């Protein structure tokens, strides 16, 4: 589904992504892990087409460089930043993104209700965002990325600043979506929660340092959780 070949991104002298090769098959929960500044967001922004690679090639759904409308419709992107409209209500925000992605009428309303139910915000739907807590706003952000039912969902730190209970819920929702056939790429700082991914990649300074099933990586580093494996792998040089 997603194929990345020789991908490099430089910001002036800094190389944020360094000659990266990656193949992500369909229908997986794919975890992208790495310390701050390792290039996770940069990689995701290139996949969505927001920024252009310095070198290299991204193939998404069999098409080279994901900029056509057909492809854009099939990607849902939840940015790291809370990019929603604080002056609008929960449903107004979700509906807006739905309409931008071409939904309208009955299908939009049905989908809106399903999603509100999924992220458990049904009772807050008429609330203006500036009156909601940070965790609720994160849920609205997830909902706006999901509204158009994309087969590929890219989540950049969905659980940042979210309490442990809600974090677990986020992963439950992700599991639910994967069951519905959605492919998911997810980045997180909370390494241990990524144990629930089908596959993970450890990124450091724009390079892949480990890749595989979480359980295999844990075994490789004789660690009993992914976080320990991560720390050990980053100490390796």
């Amino acid at each position, binding site marked *: 589904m997603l194929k990345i070949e020789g991908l490099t991104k430089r910001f002036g002298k800094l190389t944020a992504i360094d000659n990266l090769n990656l193949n992500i098959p369909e229908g997986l929960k794919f975890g992208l892990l790495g310390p701050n500044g390792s290039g996770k967001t940069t990689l995701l922004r290139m996949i969505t087409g927001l*920024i252009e690679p310095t070198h290299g090639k991204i193939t998404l759904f069999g098409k080279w460089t994901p900029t056509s409308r057909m492809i854009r419709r099939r990607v849902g992107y939840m940015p790291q930043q809370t990019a929603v409209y604080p002056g609008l209500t929960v449903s107004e925000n979700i509906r807006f993104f739905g309409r931008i992605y071409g939904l309208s009428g009955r299908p939009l309303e049905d989908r809106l209700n399903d999603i509100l139910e999924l992220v458990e915000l049904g009772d807050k739907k008429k609330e203006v965002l500036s009156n909601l807590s940070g965790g609720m706003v994160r849920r609205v952000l997830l909902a*706006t990325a999901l509204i158009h039912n994309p087969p590929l969902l890219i989540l950049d730190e969905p659980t940042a600043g979210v309490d442990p209970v809600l974090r677990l819920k986020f992963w439950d929702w992700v599991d639910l979506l994967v069951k519905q056939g959605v492919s998911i790429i997810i980045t997180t700082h909370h390494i241990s929660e990524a144990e629930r991914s089908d596959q993970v990649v450890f990124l450091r300074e724009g390079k892949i340092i480990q890749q595989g099933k979480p359980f295999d990586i844990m075994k490789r580093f004789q660690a009993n959780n992914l976080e320990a494996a991560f720390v050990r792998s980053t100490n390796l040089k």
Partner: protein
Amino acid sequence: MAIRWIALRIIQEIIRDRRTMAFFLLVPIVVMTLIYYALLEDEKAKLGVVTRGVARFYEYPLVSVIEEDEDIEIVSLDIPDKETDPAELDRLIMEEMKKGKAHGILYMDQQLLSERFAGERGAIHIYLEGSRPTSTAAIFSSIAEAMDDLTETMPVVIDAECSAKCANSVNIKAIEIKKHYLYGSEDYRLIDYFLPVFPTFFVFFFTFIISTITFQRERVRGTLERLLIAPVSFSQIILGYISGFIIFSSVQALIIIGYILALIQISFTPHQLFALGVTLFLIMIVALTMGLLASFMAMNEFQAIQFIPLVILPQIFLSDMIWRIESFPLVFQWISYGLPLTHANIISRKVMLQNQSLWENWPQLLSLGGFFLFFMLVMSLVALKRNKNN
């Protein structure tokens, strides 16, 4: 101690933001220069003189007095000397003023002389362009003063034999001054000249500010990026913005126009109001694209806000709104043509005060359209560059 650290932090931050520094230090100079020339006020009203058969008696003495007046500049006209038909002269005089050759033209002919000798008051004619109240007033007062001098120093002797004895033999009656207006009338006040540029200015001002800030917010929040990767084109985003603002700008424009109609003492035809509406729409979309461009060029909110005075102040001074652009040095007059508001103000005045049709002002309409396309293009380039590199 705390005070020191706070002060230090402010200094560090401002020094690092070079554009803010430059702005902080340079803008006062620019604004002071503009104010200096605006208030220097060495503008002169242009007066033409046309006489037929009274050169020796009236024209030379009168002109020599008027020439002393610092507010008046005597200009030469393209009216053939051999033309003597009053009706044709009337037409030619109006023609010269329409072309902008003079703000006023003084006309006298032999009839004045014969009436004076007959012991009547006689009349001189002042043709006034009329759309610039300051020029009208300067011309009128200058001529009136000169006439007063003249009737005293050059009494016309009617009956030479009875000169000093009978007062009636000397015509000391004040000469009548007849005014003919090309535009407007005697009731036309100074403020009426300025009112037509209020709508254009306010619509420009508010649309620019609101679009700069709204778009900047959209960028800072990250929602713009989400729109950019959604299946919509950049031009759809921009057109969406324009449509959204149109409603508010239209309501605002209606309120401004309504209020001005209440203040101004001139009545307008529906066409004039329609023309003003079209002009306001054009200046609104120009202001909108300029606002979007400003927010794309800004690195942060602070820089975005700086664009407001940078764009607004020169337009206040140089768009011929209040201060006449001719009183500025040539460079500023060129800059003036690079400012959208200049063109909008020209249309607005011509339409409202001179009752010109909208289409007569096609060069200005074209300029406004050109500004819109130009800013649209530059903005798209800046926006694309931003998004490819970041």
